[in-house]
């Protein structure tokens, strides 16, 4: 087309570009709609089934841009050929055919024709993108709605949930102990390993042994804590006794001997505390004393300072153990205080009839208790039992009223007896004595 006037060639180039844009806008929207719908479906599936994909779902908005790649390839295949551009240009300029003729014959003698000037001033076809792009709106809305859906967490396996339930309480206990500095890092690591072992075992199979393993671990933790508390008590008492003995021994030689004995007891108690890791946060002087690197001070002033320091430290530790009472509840232990006896007339089941059974052990979701086990440091303490209770004979209800005198020969079975006596007395005899709600069960039993 080099023989055509420059202005005409320029107009043709502009028209070719406009046509290329038009072809793209024809081709791309269906692809974009398809990609958006596909992205919407992917988003929907990920929202429902693949929680891990949630962070990358926003990238699905790029789907229409990706769809532009095949659309562009298709546009290249469907691009207008030069002769088609010429024909459209000629048609748009009035259909005179001169442009087509000049292109085919490569003639320049007509270059000055007014018809060609009209083609040079060819009004470009108007782009109407909204007409085609409007089909994107529903697809965009679909993807938007799919992305707006809340991410659904994958339902965990029932075993895993149960396994978590088995160890949750214990895990919380360990965290609480750590918060209160009542366990050493070594103990914590060991407990974590044990906990993981129980969890793993429970996730494979949950049965009574899983709960028992968790309970055993709880018991062990509780025992350890009780041991530390005992050691603390021991240390406090030893300190008090040593202080009293030291004060008495200041003026009495016999008292000095006693003070030495109490001092040795105190050292043992401190060693015990150190073994249990309770002195990890203690002042350096106390640690040295517990390690035996420093002897107990002999002078009153030093002794008083030591007593003060030790008392302060033990007091702090005691406060921590005071918080442990709540921890004990978390262990699921039975606390009699939660079930107070009413002036000694009510039993543990709340119906004032100990041994009568019942379901009044608290709410259904309350932790089960297994008796009145004492905490380790409360062992062997006397516990008042609830008063006994004699049942009222009027509470008894006859099941069967046998006519006549009792037989001397016991029946071989209740069924046989019922048959024997029912045949003679008629069915009215036992019907009178049974509550209506029990009749069907009894009838079924005797009709076997």
């Amino acid at each position, binding site marked *: 087309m080099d023989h055509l006037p420059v202005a005409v060639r320029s107009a043709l180039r502009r028209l070719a570009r406009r046509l290329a844009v038009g072809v793209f806008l024809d081709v791309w929207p269906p692809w974009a709609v398809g990609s958006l719908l596909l992205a919407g479906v992917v988003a929907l599936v990920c929202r429902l089934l693949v929680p891990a994909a949630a962070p990358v779902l926003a990238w699905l908005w790029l789907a229409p841009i990706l769809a532009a790649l095949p659309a562009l390839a298709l546009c290249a295949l469907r691009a207008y050929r030069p*002769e088609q551009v*010429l024909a459209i240009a*000629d048609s748009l300029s*009035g*259909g005179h055919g001169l442009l087509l003729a000049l292109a085919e014959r490569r003639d320049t003698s007509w270059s000055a024709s007014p018809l060609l000037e009209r083609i040079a001033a060819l009004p470009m076809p108007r782009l109407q993108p909204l007409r085609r792009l409007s089909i994107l709106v529903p697809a965009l809305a679909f993807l938007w709605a799919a992305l707006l859906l809340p991410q659904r967490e994958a339902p965990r396996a029932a075993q895993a949930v149960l396994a978590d339930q088995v160890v949750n309480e214990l895990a919380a206990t360990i965290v609480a102990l750590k918060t209160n500095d009542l366990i050493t890092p070594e103990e914590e690591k060991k407990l974590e390993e044990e906990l993981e072992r129980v969890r793993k075992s429970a996730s494979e199979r949950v049965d009574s042994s899983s709960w028992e393993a968790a309970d055993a671990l709880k018991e062990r933790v509780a025992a350890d804590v009780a041991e530390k508390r005992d050691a603390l008590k021991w240390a406090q008492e030893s300190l008090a006794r040593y202080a009293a003995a030291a004060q008495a021994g200041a003026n009495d030689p016999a008292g000095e001997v006693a003070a030495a004995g109490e001092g040795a007891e105190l050292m043992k108690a401190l060693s015990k505390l150190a073994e249990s890791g309770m002195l990890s946060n203690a002042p350096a002087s106390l640690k040295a004393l517990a390690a035996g690197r420093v002897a107990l001070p002999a002078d009153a002033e030093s002794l008083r300072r030591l007593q003060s320091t030790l008392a302060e430290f033990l007091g702090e530790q005691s406060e921590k153990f005071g918080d442990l009472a709540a921890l004990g509840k978390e262990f699921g232990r039975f606390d009699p205080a939660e079930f107070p006896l009413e002036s000694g007339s009510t039993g543990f089941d709340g119906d004032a009839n100990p041994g009568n059974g019942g379901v009044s052990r608290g709410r259904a979701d309350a932790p089960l208790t297994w008796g009145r086990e004492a905490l380790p440091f409360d062992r062997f303490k006397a516990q008042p039992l609830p008063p006994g209770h004699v049942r009222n004979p009027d509470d008894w209800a006859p099941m069967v009223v046998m006519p006549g005198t009792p037989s001397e020969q016991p029946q071989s079975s209740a069924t046989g007896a019922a048959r024997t006596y029912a045949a003679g007395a008629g069915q009215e005899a036992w019907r009178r004595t049974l509550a209506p709600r029990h009749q069907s069960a009894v009838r079924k039993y005797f009709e076997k």
Partner: protein
Amino acid sequence: MPNESETLQSPGTVADAQASIGRLVGELRRVILGKEQTIDEVVAALLARGHVLLEGLPGLGKTELVKALSRALSLGFRRIQFTPDLLPTDITGSHILQERDGRKDFTFHPGPVFTNLLLADEINRASPKTQAALLEAMQERRVTTFGETRELPAPFFVMATQNPIELEGTYPLPEAQLDRFMFKVEISGVERPVLEEILLTRVHGEPPALEPVLAPHDLGALFAAVDAVHMPRAVASYIARLVAASHPSSAESPEAVRTFVKYGSSPRGAIAIGAASRGMALLRGKPNVGFDEVRRVAAPALAHRLVLDYAAKLEGWDGRRVVAALLESVPEVERGLPQTLAAR
């Protein structure tokens, strides 16, 4: 087939041809007032060497147009008034037994068909046998009688007229014969200003005297110029698609064609459009055919070639209306604008 390496006719050649045609058209317009389009169509068909069927009510200047054409072209002119008792030999001529030099022999006496421009007035009043006598003459431009074939003088044109009313005792032209007319030109009535002009300029309705404006060799040059008019491939494609769409079985045919057309145009229709549009292009001073010329000549070239069914008559559809529907539905370019683009 034109060579693609050939150049177009020079602007000067085309301008000369257009001037010659302009003189002819000018003379015809002096005689027939207010019928510019009809005159253009007749001249285009003449330049394409096609036969024309003029249809219109009496008194609209059909015969006068042909007579004016013959005078302006200084061609041989004969007129046959078709009547029911007209015989084929009255057209083609016949052998008459004559005695010459003591011998009796059959001598051929040429009929009125042996001329350049034949006016077949009220052609539908003759019997089909007589109408058929024109078939060979129109298509082959020769006449065969008594086993002897005689060439008709060149150029040879048949300008037939017919009256669309007073159909009693007439014989409608068969489709085969209609197909041999390049154009069927419908002549409509004149408007009031034209009537006033006629009254003011024509005493007793006599047309002004005409002088020949084109010698036979000028006409030959014009024919050569018409043949040299270039038809671009896209325009040829448009003609082909138009004609193909005139068949109701075509996938591209519009609803009107599928509903009202029984048989579409023959390939002769496409040839007629191509030839006539070349003539029309030269008439307009163009070295090539454009879509515009095709649209201009489509109706007179195609309308009489469509065989309409009775539904069309009941619904008031005629050939021209169907062609208009065709032109509306078939795009000029095979591949139009994308959907997102609209022409301004």
